């Protein structure tokens, strides 16, 4: 962390988005994470994406559990409400919040401990409910705040800072999400904003639960030789399978792609994700084959990244619950009470 806060300097050349705000308007408090932490880069990517989508700062609700990753919700969009809940339980808070107001964008930020250990159940059930939210895992394979224990995402054979080797198999959030029926599954890397920023944009606009597992190295406890989640290892074992470009509504796709290499997917608000397939044989809309591909690459020790699976046809949380279009927290009381007449009617049943 730093003693001084990031100075607020708005130099005249700073670009503005459609609602006249600069990136700086989407920043939050100063990070208290270690210098060089991947999480800070994810924060910057979120800022870039939210700014790029011209979301009003207050339209974003930021939710998190406990851990290094969960702290980051304080570091962006100070104009939006934040909620740093309890360990592993962010998905339930997000579920309730989303139930109360379907009009906001919900960004949940979690870590590998928060999601894959203590919060594994809630993570799974948020996927089952298809809560309309962007769920970012800042995955570094290690417990930072308690100083370096392996997490549930640590790979077999990955070495701790003092040399101890992890012997338990990892829980892969991407594979898990695919198995559970998630409708937007991506993996990215904190050090690759060109990939991450459009993924975040697409995830925010996706109708339903969007998971992005972001490999986000821990510079203090897991960036050494022998780690499979260090900056160097991730860069060396990086397999981007589908690159997603986010295309806002009413924007023409002008670039030309070879046959079978590009696949436009239209989101419910009219925006599109243009999927550029780096491996032409890969089909990001085929869940079964995605799982197979992933398993194969996992065995080779490769980190498959990009938009691995997307399905725009499924019903989200509110569709399943047939919820009214007006956010529930804005319903007038008069619409909610059966009144005195209603009471008389109800009482009839109990006489």
């Amino acid at each position, binding site marked *: 962390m730093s003693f001084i806060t990031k100075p607020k300097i708005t130099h005249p050349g700073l670009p503005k988005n459609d609602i006249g705000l600069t990136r700086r308007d989407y920043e939050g408090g100063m990070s208290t994470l270690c210098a060089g932490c991947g999480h800070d880069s994810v924060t910057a990517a979120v800022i870039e994406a939210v700014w790029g989508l011209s979301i009003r700062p207050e339209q974003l609700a930021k939710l998190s559990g406990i851990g290094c990753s969960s702290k980051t919700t304080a570091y962006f969009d100070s104009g939006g409400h934040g909620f740093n809940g309890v360990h592993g339980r962010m998905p339930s808070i997000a579920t*309730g919040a989303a139930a109360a107001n379907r009009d906001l964008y919900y960004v949940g930020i979690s870590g590998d401990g928060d999601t894959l250990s203590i919060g594994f159940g*809630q993570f799974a059930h948020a996927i089952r409910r298809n809560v309309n939210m962007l769920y970012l895992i800042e995955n570094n394979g290690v417990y930072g705040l308690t100083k370096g224990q392996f997490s549930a995402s640590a790979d077999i054979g990955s070495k701790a800072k003092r040399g101890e080797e992890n012997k338990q198999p990892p829980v892969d959030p991407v594979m898990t999400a695919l198995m559970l029926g998630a409708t937007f599954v991506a993996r990215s890397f904190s050090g690759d904003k060109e990939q991450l920023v459009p993924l975040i944009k697409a995830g925010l606009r996706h109708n339903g639960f969007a998971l992005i597992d972001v490999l986000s190295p821990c510079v203090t406890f897991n960036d050494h030789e022998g780690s499979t989640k260090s900056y160097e290892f991730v860069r060396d074992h990086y397999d981007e399978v589908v690159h997603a470009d986010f295309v806002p509504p009413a924007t023409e796709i002008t670039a030309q792609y070879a046959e079978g290499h590009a696949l436009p997917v239209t989101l419910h608000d009219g925006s599109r994700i243009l999927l550029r397939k780096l491996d032409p044989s890969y089909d990001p809309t085929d869940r079964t084959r995605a799982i197979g591909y992933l398993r194969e690459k996992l065995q080779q020790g490769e980190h498959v990244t990009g938009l691995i699976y997307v399905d725009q046809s499924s019903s989200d949380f509110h569709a399943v619950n047939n919820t009214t279009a007006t956010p529930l927290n804005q319903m007038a009381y008069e619409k909610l009470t059966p009144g005195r007449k209603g009471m008389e009617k*109800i009482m009839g049943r109990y006489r």
Partner: protein
Amino acid sequence: MHTTANAQDRVNDFVLKLANVNGTGSASANTLLMKSMFRMGIPVMGKNYFPSNIQGLPTWYEIRVTREAYVARSGRIDIMVAMNAETYQRDVREVDPGGYLIYDSSWPRPTLLKRDDITILGVPLARMCNETFKGVRARILLKNIMYSGVLAALLEIDLDVMRALLAESYSSKKSLLDSNTQALEIGYNYAREHFPCPLPTRVARMDKTANHILIDGNTAAALGCLYAGATVGAWYPITPSTSVMDAFKSFCQKWRVDPETGKNNYLIVQAEDELAAIGAVIGASWNGARAFTPTSGPGISLMNEFIGLAYYAEIPAVLFDIQRVGPSTGMPTRTQQGDIMLAAYASHGDTRHVLLFPANPEECFHQAIDAFDLAERLQTPVFVLSDLDIGMNDWMCPVLDWDESYKPDRGKVLTKAQIENLPTKFHRYLDLDEDAIPYRTLPGVHPKGAYFTRGSGHNQYGGYTEDAAEYQIVLDRLRRKFERAKSLVPKALIDASGNQAAIVSVGSSDGAVREALDILKSRGVTLDYMRIRAFPFGPDVEKFLASHSLLFIVEQNRDAQLRSLLTLETPIEKHKLRSILHYSGLPISSSCIVDGVLAELGNEKRLVNSG
């Protein structure tokens, strides 16, 4: 005592107990019996003693016919309908001398019938069912209706009232209505032909149930949620709270579906566990919806971490704890008041919570609404501590009336315009009005109102802190806020006529206490009475405690939790308190209280004014 000479005493004042096997459809027959008598204008009380089981274990239903309109168990059994071979011996033993036992005589069991101080009436129910109806399942179900017919004849219950009730239940299923009516009549006719009807223990029309309903507390609580404007319910099924959400859902399906769009103006989340349920409630409340979760003790245990978060981050939440027998899984289908301490101080660190103690379904309705108003006014979790007895049994209550002038108290929530016009930055935890309650803002309203909600140390401006002084400012205000709650929560109900000794109780113990007071009075002992309806205890509670020299604390748990809370949270001297405790899992009876008081008074007679 129980001779025919006194038979007249048993008209409209007796206890009928029905022993059944779980899962045989006895509940509808027993309800039919009770409701028929209720419709005849006779006050009734029903208690269901059922197992934690879906099918096969024994279950009992107790109907007290009480012309005095008492709402507690009396502690005696006048008529036993013994339909469960497994519990037969025990059921026979339970009948008070002079009482009656009705059994299925299709299979003779002379060895079991060893009592000569009661009248035993055998009815070949199974045989008659087998002769009349087809299908094993139907026969089992209709056997129950058949004994209802037998009882109608014996007790002189108006058969037309029963037929009408059946017609209401099976209005859309003609064949079922016909078979049920037939079974009812077979039983009725058999009794008329074989027994001297009616028995001296019987019913006679009264007019004491007009403007009353029979309703269970969970349904009433759900109705309260509906009228409070709750839109989000999150829960994990747990006995005995399940029917709260079941009822809420059914009310919503009727009253909360937009007639134009067919869309739901509510959302119920059946969560993966209680942790997620309370999480969703907190998320929804944080976001400005009225949200609640019904649960029971084990659920509260699981929710502890989140409850502490809501307390410290000052997020409204409404929890219904339908208490059951603990510890651990305990006896899930039996009642207790065992969560008082758990709820009062739920979660780690310094936490204290607002508790409401309804005593009956009527109060479940009203306190559900109070709970939402208090939760949002005080920005804190509020517990409605009901129990299985109130929640799952049908109680006779006055018809619920609705005051159209009610407006929900949404508490100190800043509007968009108010945020816009703030002269300074928004500070979430600042005590601007010096009433210990800060202002809050909702997400999505205005960027100037944004703040960061956290369970970690924060200062009054809402910022993260590890500074001792800053931390304490907030903690001290939370204590003052809790003090402030004393003037906002429902006051205790007090019946005082200057006696030195008094009874203090809470929740569902009330009915038994009131009956006990009458009995004690008839024996020359008069006591004052206070029923506490909320925690924190207000000045009215303290004053009552101070002005009595002997206080019987009546509650349904082993460890005298109410008494503990009173000694912790009021200046009461411990030596003035005597506990009367009941923790069998069955609802407390008046006799237990009478016995307890009289035993104590043997030692302390000087303190009691003779009535």
